[in-house]
């Protein structure tokens, strides 16, 4: 019999309550008539076969009835339906959009085979956090001596002029060891990957194209394999094309070639420019692998104390390579969107409660006519599910439209491919959210409405005297809304203050009116220093003669764009174990400081007369000078920089090379002529900086392009940007985050205001009689007004206090994003409190005035 009772649970509860007893009785009769085990087994089977399809159909019939009923009811109050759907859509849309970013950045497995075993191996500074590339020699030794890794592949960035089909173009990519691909476990879409034979020193060039390069430059030609191309004048053969979803190590990768390391690359162990990815053997833990590499490194440090001894080493899971700030930012946004969703849900519940109350009479009539309570609850929940379903669908559409706008929140170096999209897992998330919203925030109002209807519905008809329980519930919902909106307001306020603080940071240079671009200089044509000097002189003199140009110069990388390039700098003659200072080293042409607007503090700028045969000179930044010679002049002192002893001839202000937020190393500038042929070739100046008085700096571009083409028509120009754009891009993720969060906060603010308004309007309409009696007994309009306002004020104050506490806790959690702004920042909290006050006043005023204007005689008469 228990079996049949279980089967009955398949039916809707109201159906079970109505017919369950009879059905069980029939089954019992048949059971008692059945003889023998076989017949009874047959009876059980047929009972199950009878129950399953019928239960499903009863559910479907009920759902159909409820849905039709709901649609009729909603069509009668389109305003309510529209508001409920819009509110839900905002909440679910925000949560879905931020979840798709969170999922992409933090959760989704990387698109490689068995991605949990992929790690990166880095050198580290001996002091403080950070990661440093390793030298080819260290990489080779790690590989030869370690046993924890199945495969290891090193790679380094590469940028080259591609000549193949169409105009010459600048491509960026990576030179990789062939094991790079096998470590990741990827396959090419066309052709083959790089082989060991491609990577031998002196092997003919082999290149693998990215899907995007293959499409944009080669017209997605399937016969591209075998095509000959030139990269920086060197012949390469295209051997393969990667699939679209593969864009490791970063999204901007267009081409992969082999490293083809030469013997001399292994000589200088301080010349570190390789990154390495490795696959840990099955069954080996990350900790074990890290310990093994560290032990090997300790050995190497003993063997090479002056090189390997100056750095540490670490092994990180590939998934954890995301910058901590990105992680915090994404989590903070998701938390904010959940707060917004909570507010939206509270609003939805409030709307449903208010509406259920307005429909009390209808529900009471249906109850009196014998409708089962469970059936009514089911119908009301169907109604909230239909509303939340429509809201969810609209929300997903909103999210799909909004996600691409937030793409800059995804760190460039994220090893996952592409950008977040609203795809199946995200849709499932939205569906779950919609279901939970509809059920969780529909059930309570439905239960309340039905119990109200049962206990007092018909007796009181549509007259006042709402259930105090309902009113309390709504007050709690309003407090929750105010809490969430105040904490969002404070959170975005804190981030806004942080952004302001960062934007006010002195970058050390003046970015207005400066146009920048890159001209790659293909080797070996420009390997000789003198060839470059000729080129720079011709280009710069033509550019300087353009109308509106005040200065022009070439340099190795631009601040906030090229952040690395760190070398040790030591006073000349310092003992060998002297702990040299890290400094960012740049080669520049004369006029660089004027073009960048970097003030000269002492001494002089470089001059064209600082040629290779003249005394070697450098210009250093103030902080380097004061660290090496505190309180003394640095002019005339000699330091070791760029592998030579040089004299300091000038001191300039420090520049925020690493951007607004990170502290930067001091800077050392070396004259562009004073470097030997083919030496330090990675630091060849390629960035052209043009300062102009023109209102539209971009208008100079044709003239500049012509000047470059005149000097060398094969040089492609790439990366044309205003210096101010580079500076702006440094804070772009913050700005995007703030815009999103600010949007959430504004919506939350609006919804909470509506919540207060709705509750008070409800209270006033429900208590019209009470208010009328009070007025009849002599209460003044003013005191009624105060009574209603006070009620709104109490709710808002409770919510604001809670919200402030939550915001403080939240501020502590995102302290790394606050750029030194205190999580208890007074002005922010005061501003949020002020806004909450305004919101309360605006929300309460209309219902309060309506209450104060009630005509007591009329109210009491109609009652």
């Amino acid at each position, binding site marked *: 019999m228990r079996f049949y009772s279980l089967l009955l649970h398949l*039916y809707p509860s109201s*159906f079970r309550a*109505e*017919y369950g007893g*009879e*059905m069980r*009785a*029939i*089954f019992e*009769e048949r059971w008692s008539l059945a003889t023998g085990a076989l017949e009874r087994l047959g009876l059980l089977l*047929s*009972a199950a*076969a*009878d*129950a399953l*399809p*019928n*239960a499903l*159909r*009863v559910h479907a*019939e009920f759902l159909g009835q409820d849905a039709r009923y709901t649609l009729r009811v909603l069509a009668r109050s389109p305003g309510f339906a529209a508001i409920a759907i819009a509110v839900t859509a905002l909440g679910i849309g925000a949560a879905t959009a931020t979840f798709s970013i969170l999922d992409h950045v933090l959760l989704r497995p990387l698109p490689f085979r068995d991605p949990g075993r992929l790690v990166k191996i880095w050198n580290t500074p001996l002091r403080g956090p950070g990661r440093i590339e390793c030298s080819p020699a260290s990489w080779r030794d790690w590989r030869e001596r370690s046993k924890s890794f199945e495969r290891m592949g090193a790679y380094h960035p590469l940028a080259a002029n591609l000549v193949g089909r169409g105009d010459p173009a600048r491509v960026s990519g990576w030179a990789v060891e062939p094991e790079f691909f096998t470590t990741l476990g990827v396959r090419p879409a066309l052709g083959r990957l790089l082989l060991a034979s491609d990577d031998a020193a002196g092997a003919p060039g082999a290149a693998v194209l990215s899907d995007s390069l293959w499409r944009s430059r080669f017209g997605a030609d399937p016969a591209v394999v075998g095509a000959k191309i030139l990269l920086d004048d060197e012949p390469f053969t295209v051997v393969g094309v990667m699939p679209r979803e593969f864009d490791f190590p970063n999204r901007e990768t267009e081409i992969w070639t082999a490293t083809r390391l030469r013997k001399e690359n292994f000589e200088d162990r301080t010349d570190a420019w390789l990154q390495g990815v490795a696959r840990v053997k099955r069954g080996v833990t990350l900790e074990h692998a890290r310990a093994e590499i560290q032990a090997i490194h300790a050995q190497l440090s003993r063997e090479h104390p002056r090189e390997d001894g100056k750095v540490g080493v670490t092994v990180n899971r590939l998934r954890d390579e995301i910058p901590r700030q990105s992680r915090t930012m994404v989590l903070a946004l998701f938390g904010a969107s959940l707060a917004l969703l909570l507010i939206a849900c509270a609003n939805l519940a409030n709307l449903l409660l208010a509406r259920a109350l307005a429909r009390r009479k209808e529900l009471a009539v249906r109850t009196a006519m014998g409708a089962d309570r469970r059936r009514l609850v089911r119908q009301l929940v169907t109604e909230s599910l239909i509303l939340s379903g429509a809201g969810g669908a609209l929300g997903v559409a909103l999210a799909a439209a909004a996600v691409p706008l937030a793409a800059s929140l995804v760190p460039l170096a994220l090893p996952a491919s592409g950008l977040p999209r609203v795809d199946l897992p995200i849709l499932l998330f939205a569906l779950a959210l919609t279901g939970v919203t509809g059920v969780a925030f529909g059930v309570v109002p439905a239960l309340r409405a039905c119990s109200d209807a049962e206990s007092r519905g018909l007796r009181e008809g549509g007259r006042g005297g709402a259930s105090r329980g309902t009113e309390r519930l709504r007050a709690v919902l309003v407090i929750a809304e105010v809490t969430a909106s105040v904490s969002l307001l404070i959170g975005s306020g804190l981030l806004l203050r942080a952004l302001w603080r960062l934007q006010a940071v002195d970058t050390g240079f003046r970015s207005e009116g400066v146009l920048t671009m890159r001209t790659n200089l293909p080797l070996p044509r420009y390997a000789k220093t003198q060839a470059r000097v000729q080129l720079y002189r011709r280009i710069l003199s033509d550019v300087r003669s353009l109308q509106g140009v005040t200065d022009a110069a070439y340099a190795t990388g631009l601040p906030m764009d090229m952040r690395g390039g760190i070398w040790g700098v030591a006073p000349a003659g310092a003992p060998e174990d002297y702990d040299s200072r890290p400094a960012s080293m740049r080669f520049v042409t004369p006029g660089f400081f004027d073009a960048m607007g970097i003030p000269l503090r002492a001494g002089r700028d470089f001059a064209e007369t600082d040629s290779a045969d003249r005394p070697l000179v450098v210009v250093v930044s103030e902080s380097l000078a004061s660290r090496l010679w505190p309180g003394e002049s640095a002019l005339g002192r000699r330091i070791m920089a760029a592998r030579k002893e040089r004299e300091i001839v000038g001191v300039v202000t420090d520049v925020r090379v690493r951007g607004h937020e990170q502290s930067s190393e001091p800077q050392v500038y070396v004259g562009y002529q004073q470097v030997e042929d083919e030496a330090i070739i990675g630091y060849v100046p390629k960035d052209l900086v043009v300062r102009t008085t023109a209102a539209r700096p971009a208008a100079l571009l044709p003239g500049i392009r012509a000047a470059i083409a005149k000097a060398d028509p094969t040089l492609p120009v790439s990366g044309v940007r205003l210096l101010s754009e580079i500076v702006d891009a440094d804070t772009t993720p913050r700005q995007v985050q703030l815009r999103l969060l600010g949007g959430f906060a504004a919506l939350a603010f609006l919804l909470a205001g509506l919540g207060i308004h709705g509750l008070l309007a409800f209270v006033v309409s429900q208590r019209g009689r009470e208010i009328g009696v009070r007025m009849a007994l002599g209460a003044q309009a003013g005191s009624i007004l105060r009574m209603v306002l006070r009620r709104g004020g109490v709710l808002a104050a409770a919510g604001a206090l809670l919200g402030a506490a939550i915001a403080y806790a939240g501020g502590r959690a995102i302290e790394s994003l606050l750029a030194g702004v205190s999580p208890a920042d007074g002005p922010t909290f005061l501003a949020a409190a002020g806004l909450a006050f305004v919101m309360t006043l605006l929300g309460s005023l209309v219902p309060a005035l309506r209450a104060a204007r009630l005509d007591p005689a009329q109210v009491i008469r109609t009652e």
Partner: protein
Amino acid sequence: MISLAEIFHCGYIHDGYNPGMTDKQALLSEAAFHILVALAEGDRHGYAILQEVAERTRGRMRLGPGTLYRSIQRMLEQGLIEEPRERPAAELDDERRRYYRITALGRAAARAEAGRLAALVRMARLSGLAPKQT
């Protein structure tokens, strides 16, 4: 109360032959038709309906309780049957049971369905697909 036309989605109900009607789908589900037939002679409770149906069809139609009560629930809503207020004569009454009674609408629906089926059989006879009436 829902009208018969609404239940059957057809505008015209006819006792006799109506060529248009044979094109329509069955007016009632087989279970509902059997239930109406079983109730035609008097009020019955659920189990009695099952027995009656089994008897009339010589055991070929064996309704399960799920199908029975799902049909009953729908037919109550459609007004084809009702629960009588008065109970049957004391000696026949089984107090634990709920009884059902066919309504006028139910009779009309059953008659219309019977007419439709009869029309189908007549057509089949004319073309020799069914045995001639004896």
